[in-house]
């Protein structure tokens, strides 16, 4: 699988631009804008979890919405049934998601290409079917009444969309810096090399399976955080969140942004979600437009919007 050029400088520049736009829009935007930014930020966290395993290890997952669901349902159960604070719930969901990801990853990371995609799809659909029929998880009605973190003691009202939006942006920044650190570290570079030539990594003594299992586990934990934040934003969770099409949309976001740059995944999530939202307000056949746009990018812009930015940057120099 192809990934974009390794360019830490542009990665940081793009993040700063996106961050500035979101901060300005958050401060001067309406109630709805702030809610929308929080939604985009959570989708960005989900997208970079997918981007990380796709570009580091070459693992394309069509079942990652399962981890989004694990994060969302765990948060709902931990905070409603066990009275655990929402912040601790989010931290716990990372651990729960990462452990489940490590167990699943241990058994599937040796699979390549289509086999990996199909196994993750099957696992995701099994989880979706189970969630739909589970009384404990609320079945098709889902679970409602999930609260947001309470920072009122330090004078912060998390029910205000402005503060909650900044709260999820902070999560995104933390995850961004963790993943960029790993990407630039020996483990990340080995994972990148596995995507390019896993056979050679084995031949130089690399622990191919272990690297991939760690990456899958970390990605699962991050997707779970996205699920936890999503459920806190909306106050409820329904099984639709765990459907494979959610994973598919995540993959569209990273392809549009450019696979492998992290910041590109955030850009992709932002652009795709805005287009989806705006187009659906104007026309009924908006999915057709999104579909054609996606095909265009796959055929003519395989580096996605990241590639376009790189070309613009080169021309400006």
């Amino acid at each position, binding site marked *: 699988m192809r*990934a974009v*050029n*390794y360019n830490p400088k542009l990665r940081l520049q793009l993040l700063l631009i996106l961050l500035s736009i979101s901060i300005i829009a958050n401060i001067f935007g309406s109630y709805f804008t702030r809610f929308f930014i929080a939604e985009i930020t959570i989708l960005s966290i989900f997208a970079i979890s997918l981007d990380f395993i796709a570009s580091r290890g070459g693992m394309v997952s069509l079942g990652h919405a399962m981890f989004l669901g694990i994060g969302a349902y765990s948060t709902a159960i931990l905070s409603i049934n066990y009275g655990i604070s929402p912040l601790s719930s989010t931290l716990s969901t990372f651990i729960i998601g990462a452990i489940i990801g490590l167990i699943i990853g241990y058994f599937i990371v040796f699979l390549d290409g289509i086999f990996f995609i199909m196994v993750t799809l099957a696992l995701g659909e099994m989880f979706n079917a189970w969630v739909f029929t589970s009384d404990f998880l609320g079945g098709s009605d889902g679970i409602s009444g999930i609260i947001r973190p309470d920072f009122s003691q330090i004078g912060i009202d998390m029910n205000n969309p402005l503060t909650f939006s900044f709260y999820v942006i902070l999560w995104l920044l933390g995850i961004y810096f963790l993943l960029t*650190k*790993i990407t*630039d*570290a*020996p*483990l*990340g*570079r*080995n994972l*990148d*090399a596995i995507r*390019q*030539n896993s*056979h*050679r990594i*084995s*031949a*130089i*003594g*690399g*622990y*191919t399976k*272990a*690297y991939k299992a*760690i990456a899958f586990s970390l990605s699962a934990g991050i997707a779970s955080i996205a699920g936890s934040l999503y459920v806190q934003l909306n106050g409820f969770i329904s099984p639709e969140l765990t459907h494979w099409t959610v994973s598919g949309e995540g993959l569209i976001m990273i392809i549009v942004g450019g696979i492998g740059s992290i910041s590109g995944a955030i850009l992709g999530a932002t652009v795709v979600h805005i287009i989806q939202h705006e187009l659906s307000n104007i026309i009924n056949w908006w999915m057709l437009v999104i579909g054609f746009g996606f095909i265009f990018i796959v055929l003519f812009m395989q580096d996605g919007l990241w590639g376009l930015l790189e070309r613009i940057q080169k021309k400006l120099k």
Partner: protein
Amino acid sequence: MLLSLNNINKSFGAIKVLNNVNIISERKECIGIIGPNGAGKSTLFKVISGNLKQDTGDIFFNNTNITNFNTEKRARLGISQSFQKNSLFPEMTVKESLALALTHKYNVSFNIFNSLVNNKNINTDAINIAKDIGLSDYLETKSDNLAYGLQRQLELGIAIACNPTLLLLDEPTAGMSPLETKEIIKLIKKLSINYSIILVEHDMEVIYELAKRIYVLDRGSLIFEGDQKSVKNSELVQQKYLGI
């Protein structure tokens, strides 16, 4: 003795590809394995590197029985290989490729906090290896953009960056021009001072130039073993391999 292959047999269905092969490699010795097409050279190479499992027979490396070790484990013990067809990291530069291989030498491949670019020891080593293999001028060139001969050199560089004891070289001059072949022979000669080398080649001139001891394979069986002079003078080898 560094490596010992004892009674190695390998079949693919009804076809016997390796038949009771016994090979010994001493420390810092360059040995050559030759044979016509279909003799079993590549299969033997894959058996030594762990890419293929033999049906019967044992392999000892540094007094350790590595018969059941996979490629990764053998590489970590010090068996490094370069491939007949280039097997590089196409999107990585020469320096990145070498640095990546060095993460295994320095046992830091699981590190998640320190940037590889800022690792001074690894970077210095990567630059030194690039110098040794003649790629100093291409440090920032992506391996996919290197000329074929330079890719072969990088192939060797990655193999030696893992700090091996034994280098397995599968047709290192395959597809090279005479000039490039000369360069790679010079390079392997230099490497043979510090490393044990097993060279699989079909080009007799390359083998005569580099190998101190030569094993001749024919239809999966070893038919001769000796130095280059005795190989040149062997009637059996002339008959079976050189077709004289």
